[in-house]
């Protein structure tokens, strides 16, 4: 039983990693006042970039760089439309999603001729799982053994990076000058401007950080979790990450727990499928597949408290004398 639970948590970690990275990406962007509905598209673009370059180069790191590059490129398009040209951020974000969905399938088809999919990556083109030191030796120690060797050890480097990004994000946002200014520009850009700091440059930096994190999230999907890009492989994860961001009230720590919860529900649905529960019997598969959505609705409706977005989120900043 205990071991089953550990394996369930292990699967939770794998499934929540892309959500967490995308959620933190959205956090930077929205905290700076740029609503980002294009997380999904950026992840998809990154997954394709990483998958394609990872396959061609046979090197996971080169693939990762390509993934981040594509994602930052898309983020800059979003930035150009919504910061420089003060366009509607929702429309621009939706455009990014469409652009990524169409372009990845088209380029994938014309480059690899496999219906938009990249060929299966070689071992070198993927991030391998890392065994932490002493994981094998500690495996048989009760309680700590399984926790250490199953749950903590044996993930790929992007998983560790995602969880390390949580305290890092907290530190950057709440303990550095850059973070203070970034939050201020999302609440009251006029005050930041009055202090002689460029609103535009700050917001661009936030959008670039968002692109980098989305790049990690997308690359995780195609070159760490699976071995290649598949058409529309993000399957709505960007939107779930966006929901998690609201659910977490735009705070890094809460974001981690929200993503872990959603990942846990996903893992639970997979594990409990077709298994008898003591006293209840077998629960239909459909129930477990719907459970994450049901719980999200319940949680959002009743127990979340009040989610207050950054005050200037979605509002383009216009200097008075221009």
């Amino acid at each position, binding site marked *: 039983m205990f071991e*089953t639970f550990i*394996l369930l948590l292990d*699967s939770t970690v*794998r*499934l929540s990693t892309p959500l967490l990275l995308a959620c933190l990406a959205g956090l930077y962007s929205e905290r700076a006042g740029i609503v980002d509905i294009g997380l999904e598209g950026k992840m998809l673009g990154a997954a394709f970039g990483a998958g394609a370059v990872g396959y061609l180069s046979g090197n996971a790191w080169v693939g990762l760089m390509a993934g981040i590059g594509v994602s930052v490129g898309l983020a800059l398009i979003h930035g150009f439309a919504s910061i420089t040209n003060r366009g509607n951020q929702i429309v621009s974000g939706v455009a990014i999603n469409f652009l990524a969905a169409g372009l990845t399938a088209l380029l994938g088809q014309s480059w690899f*001729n*496999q*219906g*938009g*999919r990249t060929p*299966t990556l070689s071992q070198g083109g993927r991030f391998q799982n890392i065994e932490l030191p002493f994981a094998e030796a500690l495996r048989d120690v009760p309680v700590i053994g399984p926790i250490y060797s199953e749950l903590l050890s044996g993930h790929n480097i992007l998983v560790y990076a995602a969880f390390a990004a949580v305290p890092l994000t907290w530190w950057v946002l709440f303990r550095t000058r850059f973070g203070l200014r970034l939050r201020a520009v999302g609440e009251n850009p006029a005050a930041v401007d009055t202090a002689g700091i460029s609103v535009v440059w700050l917001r661009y930096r936030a959008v670039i950080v968002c692109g980098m994190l989305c790049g990690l999230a997308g690359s995780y*999907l195609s070159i760490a*979790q*699976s*071995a*290649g890009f*598949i*058409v*529309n*492989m993000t*399957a709505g994860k960007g939107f779930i990450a966006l929901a998690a961001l609201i659910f977490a009230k735009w705070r890094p720590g809460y974001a981690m727990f929200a993503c872990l919860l959603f990942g846990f529900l996903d*893992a639970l649905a*997979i*594990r409990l*499928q*077709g298994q008898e529960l003591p006293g209840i019997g077998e629960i239909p*598969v*459909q129930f477990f*597949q719907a459970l994450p959505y049901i719980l999200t609705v319940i949680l959002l409706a009743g127990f979340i408290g009040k989610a207050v977005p950054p005050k200037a989120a979605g509002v383009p900043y216009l200097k008075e004398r221009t």
Partner: protein
Amino acid sequence: MKKLFAMSAAASVMLACASALAADIQPAVLYDLGGKFDKSFNEAAHSGAQRFLEDTGIEYRDFELQNDSQREQALRNFARRGMNPIVAIGFSQANAVEKVAAEYPDTQFAIVDMVVDLPNVRSIVFKEHEGSYIVGMLAAMASETGKVGFVGGMDIPLIRKFACGYKQGVLAVNADAEVFQNMTGTTGAAWNDPVKGGELAKSQFDRGADVVYHAAGATGIGVLQAAADAGKLGIGVDSNQNGLHPGSVLSSMIKRVDVAVYQAFDDAKNDNWTSGFEVLGLAEGGVDWALDENNAALVTEEMKAAVAQAKNQIISGEIVVHDYMSDQNCPF
């Protein structure tokens, strides 16, 4: 005016010549969701059509669906452009074929995996349970833990038919064996979700399974990947997938959709077209298991002998493999 008339007459003669030259057929294939390069079901259909092209030089048209609403539209487009015969791949095409075939009674249609009862439709179904029984035996013989897994795509009777035959085959070898069954989902997206397929396979490995059979289209790529990553064995489906991860794919349950497509094209070309009902099982070579250099080391002489015997017994009727779709129930 006269000149114009002459010109149009000449044009119509030329047109007539062109159509006489192309008295050959204009075949078309409509793939199911998952796309023609799913390395599995649709790819088998694609390779059949491709082989026909190479053998005869007759071009075919094909279309890959992006969503369910395109089925009818695509079929009607083919029919309107004079494509004949039109082969629809997958059980989900049934409603669309039924509708469009009635609208174009002079066009020949074929549907794989489903029965449409119209005078101009050839329905081709396979005895997947027989092939699944054979790979089930292989799985049970290769398993060291006595536990094996099955990952299905969309939860539909057709896929349960695979699962049930597989289970019967496993139990025939080892009556104490445990078979874990998982379905990926209940919508068309379940054919194209390798990440979920991989997670399902991992969950079965965690419970002790060491061989996993998938019947899940492109989702199965993730299943086989997970098996290869974990050092376990996978079993492919529809196409020969042994080469995807040489040494980690025990075998593949081959469903000769390629033969069905090729046959349909060829019959139309030779004016041998027959409509009606076609069932392809082990006896007809419609289903089989794959043995090639990629999995030769995994299959022992003993296993070969056992499945060869079972195959003969199924063909002779000595072993009856239960067909889930006959009573919507799996007795095992």
